[in-house]
């Protein structure tokens, strides 16, 4: 043997070998874990609470609204000073659930000392990482699908109306958007689980990012926009609003909120500032589903791109990591 290796010879064998074995094992772990049961209980309780309150309100307007089933998700109630609705709770709990499923994905294997044993089986690292991600995503999708069906069923039962085809279509797209939103946080949590050896550190890091986008980002965008584009005349004011919107769209929370707005409130015609002159001659009423989807399409693809980017980052980081502690 001589030391001559052709540069960049491809590795042989499929990177997907063992993917299903990993996915099914992780899925089983997730579905039977106490962690997931706790979150499912929490989501179910808040869902039931908000939805039955929404239905109570909606019963007075049955027959007047063509999108009754979408209102179940979006109608907000007041409790003291706080407005709350089903989608609001969901956008709050989904990141939490996704982080809970992903924060110890890889460092947990290190700490249990199972990683080298698993990777010495005939699989690539790709399969382990992708399998874990898919299992997390499936777990969330199963929970969300069950939740969506439950809420719809509750609506049919309590309101006595069946959802129209368009409402079902919008509901399904809402479900897909929610899974994509969950995917962002899952991928982020997994990224940290590769980066940090301690599960507690990676959980805290993921929660910190979530808190940053949920609480500080809206404040920050306001301040930055004010400083960069002071509003001393109407045009500058518009520029300020647009800058603030552009900045806030860097947050997955904004993207998700805008997708929900256009999907669940069909009367939404624009996701930014609209001038009076632009409304001149406009026909009042709801947009068809295809137009609502078109409106939210950039946000939709933005969320999917974020998932892919975060997963790719995790993948690169994991491939470069040494197996031994």
């Amino acid at each position: 043997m001589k030391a001559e290796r052709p540069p960049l010879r491809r590795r042989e064998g499929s990177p997907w070998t063992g993917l299903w074995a990993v996915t099914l094992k992780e899925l089983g772990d997730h579905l039977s874990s106490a962690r997931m049961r706790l979150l499912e209980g929490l989501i179910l309780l808040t869902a039931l609470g908000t939805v039955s309150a929404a239905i109570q309100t909606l019963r007075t307007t049955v027959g007047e609204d063509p999108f009754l089933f979408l209102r179940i998700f979006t109608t907000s109630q007041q409790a003291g000073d706080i407005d709350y609705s089903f989608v609001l709770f969901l956008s709050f709990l989904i990141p939490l659930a996704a982080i809970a499923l992903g924060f110890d994905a890889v460092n947990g294997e290190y700490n249990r000392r199972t990683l080298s044993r698993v990777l010495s089986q005939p699989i690539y690292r790709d399969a382990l990482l992708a399998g874990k991600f898919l299992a997390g995503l499936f777990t969330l999708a199963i929970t969300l699908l069950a939740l969506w069906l439950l809420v719809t069923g509750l609506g049919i039962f309590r309101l006595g109306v069946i959802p129209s085809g368009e409402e079902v279509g919008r509901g399904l797209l809402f479900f897909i958007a929610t899974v994509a939103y969950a995917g962002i946080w899952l991928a982020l949590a997994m990224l940290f689980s590769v980066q940090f050896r301690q599960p507690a550190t990676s959980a805290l890091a993921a929660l910190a990012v979530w808190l940053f986008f949920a609480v500080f980002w809206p404040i920050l965008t306001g301040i930055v926009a004010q400083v960069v584009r002071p509003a001393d005349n109407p045009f500058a004011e518009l520029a300020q609003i647009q800058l603030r919107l552009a900045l806030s769209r860097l947050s997955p929370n904004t993207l998700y909120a805008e997708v929900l707005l256009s999907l669940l409130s069909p009367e939404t015609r624009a996701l930014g500032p609209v001038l009076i002159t632009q409304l001149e001659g406009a026909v009042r009423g709801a947009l068809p589903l295809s137009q609502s989807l078109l409106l939210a399409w950039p946000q939709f693809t933005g969320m999917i791109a974020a998932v892919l980017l975060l997963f790719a980052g995790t993948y690169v980081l994991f491939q470069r990591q040494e197996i031994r502690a």
Partner: protein
Amino acid sequence: MTAVIEAVGLIKRYGPVVAVDDLNLTIPSGEVYGLLGPNGSGKTTTILMLLGLTEPTAGQVRVLGDDPSRNPLAVKRQVGYLPDSVGFYDELSARENLRYTAELNGLARDDAETRIDEVLTRMGLRDVATRRVGAYSRGMRQRLGLADVLLKRPQVAILDEPTMGLDPEGALEFLDMIRGLKADGITVLLASHLLHQVQAVCDRVGLFHQGRIVLEGTVDALSERVLGGAYRIHLEVDGQAQALEGTLSAVPGVVRVMRESPRGYLVEAKSDVRGAVAHRVVAAGGALLSLRLERLGLDEVYARYFQEVRHEG
């Protein structure tokens, strides 16, 4: 005999640190090879390179004819690896853990169950197969680790510190199981720092030091080479003990005489001089209570070798 594992000029650097330095290793089929050396001498890094879990900085590796860094799946299908302090999913039972391994190896369900029963029985874990692995003792975990290795019916088994943390009895039992692997025709590569434990099962050993194999051969050949065929004789003598040191030193072939205790002597010689020593003791009027020839092990070989290296340095 064909070489099952072959490494030529293998180098692994982590930044400025050289973990494995120009390693050459050839292990023929059916051999039990001991890769021995202190912690941090590069044993585990070498193993990871053999499995394709870490990329060598330079050099060539062939395991069963395949390059592990280019075709790792083919290598890992035929090579079982028991990592240093192996871990399992504690919340699952032994059977469930093995089932996961079987699935990762792509075994069909029926075949997997047959094999799982087979390896559990062989490792004496059949009765506790449904218990959570979290409740297992260290020895049971280690046996489950070996069961995990055997599940894929490997041609090569690589065991990293297999006896560490086991009580003496458990270690002996485990070494017996390793002998069983050899009987099955499995080539075994054993990495350990517990030289005295593993020297009994290894056909050949390589002593590792700072990323290099500094000595290689059978245990006997190594002690011959390093210790120069030294013989150490322990004596226990009663009465007239004062004068004996001089008497013993006069025996031809004796290099050194040391007094270990009021009644005990240690004689180092170039040849087996037990007869002459006993004769002299008795002739000098001493009562010979016991006389024992000590067989030197790898620990002494290792210690002596590095003593010499340090002296030269």
